[in-house]
């Protein structure tokens, strides 16, 4: 029923789709290999600011027209920027395929008009301030910077009020001309897609984009460990963040490492759940992997009462040492696999989720896997492989950052 199709335009733009004629809707996304790791420090936040400017008009459309047309197609659209990619996406009814591809394609060549640029700058600064008020109060940016050191993966996605305030449209255009080569972009689609038409429309709309070299350095990070305390007196809770080395997105043991994360740190039924959440020792606690090109990290987080923060830091270290020394059980692995299998089926039923899967897989450069092939890859993971992952990705040797009202917390021993 579902088929996978892929085509490369002459200028290097990849068009790829998971076509399911039974689907009620269609989803489309431009996936660009451009993120904060590609920025010079003085223009920190330019990838994310550019993501906003893409909706602010082109030589053919004003900002207002872009918004009006996205709504007139009944689209559910948005965009997101991360350390490595910027994704522009929209879901529509299948009858609007050509119109949405034309509209999204046009926005991918933005005008960056100075008056729009200055207005949008204020919006970005408000976004930065909004996150500054929210837990963990800039802790994520700080721990990424400390953990990755001078490696570009440690650079903030949003940038700072200073870098964003100082930015000019010319600097942004220069960045655009380094990253937005068609060879660095894929148009991914899923759902009820007419693929031949998609290729034809992409050719018409994107075929004239000029190709240039947009390679990036993917040198492996030299991870750092340590302990940092940020004092945030207005916070009522204490937040604990840890980053440990983890698999890159192309590492063979990524499936084993993800199951390890589920067993140790899922929000239900995991080792951390029983240690911290069931007893009310913490309000939230968990673990998740961040896989990048050539590097990777595993984040552990805990939110708890400040009075219990030191005790929780100590308990966390003990838990990490125990699980490494003794391994996990076959029963834990079996339950994690059942949970992941169920999650894959539920997620695969959403057209938009499939588009993200197709596009995100392209970002990694690995061969495409269907939802069932991904499920099979998890199912094939053995107990020794999970225990090897625990041995290799040393959760207990990490960068720890605490943020909140406590002033005297110390690294666990």
């Amino acid at each position: 029923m579902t088929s996978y199709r892929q085509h490369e335009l002459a200028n290097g733009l990849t068009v790829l789709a998971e076509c399911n004629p039974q689907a009620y809707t269609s989803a489309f996304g431009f996936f660009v290999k451009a993120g904060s790791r590609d920025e010079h420090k003085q223009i920190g936040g330019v990838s994310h600011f550019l993501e906003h400017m893409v909706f602010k008009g082109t030589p053919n459309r004003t900002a207002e027209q872009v918004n009006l047309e996205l709504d007139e197609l009944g689209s559910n659209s948005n965009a997101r920027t991360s350390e490595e990619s910027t994704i522009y996406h929209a879901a529509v009814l299948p009858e609007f395929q050509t119109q949405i591809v034309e509209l999204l394609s046009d926005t991918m060549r933005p005008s960056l008009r100075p008056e729009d640029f200055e207005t949008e700058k204020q919006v970005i600064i408000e976004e930065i301030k909004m996150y500054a008020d929210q837990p963990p109060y800039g802790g994520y940016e700080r721990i990424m910077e400390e953990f990755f050191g001078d490696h570009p993966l440690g650079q903030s996605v949003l940038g700072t009020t200073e870098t964003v305030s100082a930015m000019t449209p010319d600097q942004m255009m220069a960045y655009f001309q380094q990253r937005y080569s068609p060879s660095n972009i894929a148009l991914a689609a899923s759902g009820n897609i007419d693929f031949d038409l998609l290729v034809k429309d992409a050719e018409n709309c994107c075929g004239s984009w000029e190709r240039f070299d947009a390679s990036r350095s993917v040198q492996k990070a030299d991870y750092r460990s340590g302990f940092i305390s940020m004092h945030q007196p207005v916070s009522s809770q204490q937040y604990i963040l840890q980053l440990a080395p983890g698999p890159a997105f192309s590492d063979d043991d990524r499936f084993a490492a993800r199951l390890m994360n589920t067993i140790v740190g899922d929000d239900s039924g995991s080792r951390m759940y029983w240690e911290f959440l069931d007893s009310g020792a913490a309000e939230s606690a968990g673990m998740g992997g961040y896989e990048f090109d050539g590097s990777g990290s595993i984040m552990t987080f805990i939110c708890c009462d400040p009075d219990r923060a030191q005790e929780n830091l100590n308990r966390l270290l003990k838990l990490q040492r125990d699980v490494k020394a003794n391994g996990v059980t076959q029963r834990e692995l079996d339950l994690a696999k059942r949970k992941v299998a169920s999650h894959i089926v539920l997620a695969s039923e959403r057209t938009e989720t499939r588009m993200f899967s197709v596009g995100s897989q392209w970002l990694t450069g690995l061969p495409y896997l269907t939802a069932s092939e991904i499920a099979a890859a998890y199912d094939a993971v053995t107990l020794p492989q999970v225990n090897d992952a625990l041995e290799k990705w040393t959760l207990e040797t990490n960068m720890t950052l605490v943020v909140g009202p406590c002033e005297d917390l110390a690294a666990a021993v």
Partner: protein
Amino acid sequence: MPQQQTILSHQFPNGLTLVAQSMPELESAAFSISIPAGCRYDPSDKRGLANFACEMLLRGSGDLTNRQFVEALEFNGVDHSSSVSVYNTNFGGAMLATHLHDTLRLFATMLLDPLFPADQLEDGRQVCLMEVASLEDELAQRAIMELRSRYYGDPDGRSSEGSFESLQSITMDDIRSFHQQHYRPDETIVSVAGKFDWDALRDHIGSLLGDWESKPAAAVELIEPTKQNYHIDFPSEQTHIAIAYPALPYRSEEYFLNRGSVGVLSDGLSSRLFTEVREKRGLCYTVSASYHSLRDRACVVCYSSTTKERAQETLDVLIEQLTRLGNGIEADELRRLQIQVRSSLIMQQESCRARASAIAGDWMHLGRVRTLDEISDKINGLTVESVNQFLAEHPPRDFVVVTLGAEALESHRDIVSAT
């Protein structure tokens, strides 16, 4: 619409309702169980009791301990959740369709035969206390919670978490007696969406919950809301602004006229608030208006956050736009809204979770499910004239404003006719 929507329902002799939407193209199923045991039934000195009872129910039932219960959910691959609202305590989950019956059995046993283990009481209390504490750091939520409390009064403007003091006073006897009194089949709605066999599902629910004994509903005393503006002083980077104004409840004949006018304010990138507050003036990152309904009362809640230097202007523009809505909408705005609603209704059809929740909500408010065709017809039937007549009769006014931030704002006298 993509296909004929099949809604099935059955009421058991004890009053319990099963309502379901068949989505045979899926491999999954989702369920929701809404029990009429919301926080409006918390005694005033035991606020947070419904939430604490919900937490304790999950800590073992029938033959299963706390740990065995969680493991059984994992074994069935259930992505589950629980929550307490003003009216209801809700349990829900999604999983492979083949595990639906086993999962429903686990939850039915939890409802009818909870262990309430004494050695888990303090752990459960800690979990509830943590929820209260962590809300302190959620500034937007704090502003909106205060707004609801001022708009709806007690108990319908409550949030379910309670306070440090009230949670400390709750005993296991309180929890048992809350369960005994308020967990009852009469107004309970079990909804299921996804792949299932209707006859087998109905029989299964009958065998699990058919013997559950019905009981009368408890009376609740309503206290008139203050509906006064309020400022929460807090040294934050941004000022959070929450505004409520009256709306008609979901069950009203005029609901779609009301909902349509809110859509013009806030649905989509070309909506008035997004255009005027964010796109033209760059005043904020977040701005929205959303419709909220209790059974017999409703309101529209607008929210935005911005740095304190620009907060007064943001509040002024918000009020100006809300007031301007009373002058009516344009044909283009209505046309865009109609396309968006059609599109989002169809997109919702891909998710069994969204449908299980939507049909339970409809049943609670209406005693039936509004089908997609019906909603589509109602929305397409809206005309500029009908919406504008509605707005002339019900213009946004009587605003209640709650702000949270480093400086209080000036609320214009003419915007606060309720005070």
